[in-house]
């Protein structure tokens, strides 16, 4: 019961003063500061949308949350555990953090069904029959049950990304991280992916999303964050964020993307 109490009051992910530098200790290379002390709390049910110009560190930040990118300094506490602690087995925590990539990264040598069941069977030791039934259920919900036996190369971009989302969902994660999920899609396929993400958000899934889709941010986000030069310059509810931006650079950025 004590654990539940902690869950209720403390954030799902607590990020403190995150720093990431590239090219340090390498001769002849300029040190690049991708993250300059980013702090953020993501609570259960939050949909945090991170926007910013390219090179602002927003993807680096998102990829740091499950340590695909290892920060050089700061602290990430996930469900009460400091996952940057060397003694922590991060693989275990990654199972609870689903991730969706810009380029889908489906496994091309496996069927769609196998893509979905690999994690549950090998990592969660689920009975293959159970895992397949659950995967089929998920596929049905995104309208792709008939493609279970297909290979990724036989799907459209939008279908691939929806599969990538349900592959992450098949692990039953506590939070979903989206790294520019629609940036590699043809325009006519962006809608189907955003729709699925909206359904997910409505179902109460905790989400952190890096995107350029301002419409999505306005409609779905509980909080919008603007990053530039590895810092958070402004954050707020979509309403205040888009209607009354305070930071000059955010104003300039919005005037460019909200044409």
């Amino acid at each position, binding site marked *: 019961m004590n654990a539940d109490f902690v869950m209720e009051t403390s954030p799902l992910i607590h990020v403190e003063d995150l720093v990431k530098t590239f090219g340090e200790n390498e001769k002849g290379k300029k040190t690049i500061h991708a993250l300059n002390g980013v702090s953020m709390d993501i609570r259960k049910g939050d949909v945090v949308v991170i926007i910013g110009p390219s090179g602002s560190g927003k993807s680096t930040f998102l990829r740091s949350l499950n340590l695909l990118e290892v920060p050089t300094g700061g602290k990430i506490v996930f469900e009460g555990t400091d996952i940057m602690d060397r003694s922590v087995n991060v693989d275990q*925590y990654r199972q609870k953090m689903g*991730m969706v990539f810009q380029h889908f990264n489906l496994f*091309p*040598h496996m069927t769609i069904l196998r893509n979905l069941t690999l994690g549950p069977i*090998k990592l969660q030791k689920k009975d293959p029959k159970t895992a397949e039934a659950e995967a089929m259920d998920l596929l049905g919900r995104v309208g792709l049950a008939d493609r279970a036996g297909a*290979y990724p190369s036989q799907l459209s971009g939008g279908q691939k990304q929806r599969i990538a989302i349900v592959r992450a969902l098949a*692990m039953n994660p506590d939070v979903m991280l989206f790294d520019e999920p629609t940036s590699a899609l043809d325009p006519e396929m962006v809608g189907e992916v955003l729709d699925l993400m909206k359904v997910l958000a409505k179902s109460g899934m905790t989400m952190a999303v890096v995107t350029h889709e301002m419409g999505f941010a306005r409609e779905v986000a509980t909080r919008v964050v603007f990053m530039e030069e590895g810092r958070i310059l402004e954050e707020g509810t979509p309403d205040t964020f888009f209607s009354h931006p305070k930071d000059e650079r955010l104003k300039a950025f919005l005037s460019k993307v909200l044409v």
Partner: protein
Amino acid sequence: MNGLIDEFYRNFINESRWKLLLSGLGVTLEITAFALLLGVVLGFFVAIVRSAHDKTGKLGILNRLCTLYTTVIRGTPVVVQLMLIYYGVFASVNISKVLVAVLAFGLNSGAYVSEIVRSGIMAIDEGQFEAGRSLGFSYAQTMWYIVMPQAFKNVLPALGNEFITLLKETSVSGYIAMEDLTKAGDIIRSRTFSPFMPLIAVAVIYLIMVGIFTRLLALMERRLRNSER
């Protein structure tokens, strides 16, 4: 025409000389098969160590040993390696020549296989690693379930090429007085003084072996390709 038949008789039928070729072929295949096995095991091991080092920065000492191994093996002729192992390393030990040959050719092949496999691993998109790791798979599990199956499929033609090379390279086994296929042809020549026919027979047998090998590989490739792309 009669002269040709005569010569054929002298070289292969008389004193059952064809048996020399047959047992020579047996020795060649024996060496090749076991050297192949050793080479593949060694090659995959070295490739996995080296790519793990490239990707994670760990295994520094092991990586250096592996680099030294490929450098030395690829930098010296296989005949020299074979003789060094036979007359040097095992000079004072009573050891089967087949074992020496398997060791020499296996060690040699392993270095080439390792580079082939490593190139296959490095060619897999980084996103595949990231997808595996983000699901919660360890580095080893990601390699096993996600990266290696794709890498193996991609390098199969190059591996096949290496195997064909290996089969023919064993023809230098005569240097340590093994009676492999090439040596068998030599023995026949020394008895019959025929300049060409035994050599042509040897060449044809190698060609047939390589042909069978190629067909098997093509079959395997097709089966693996059936799935994707």
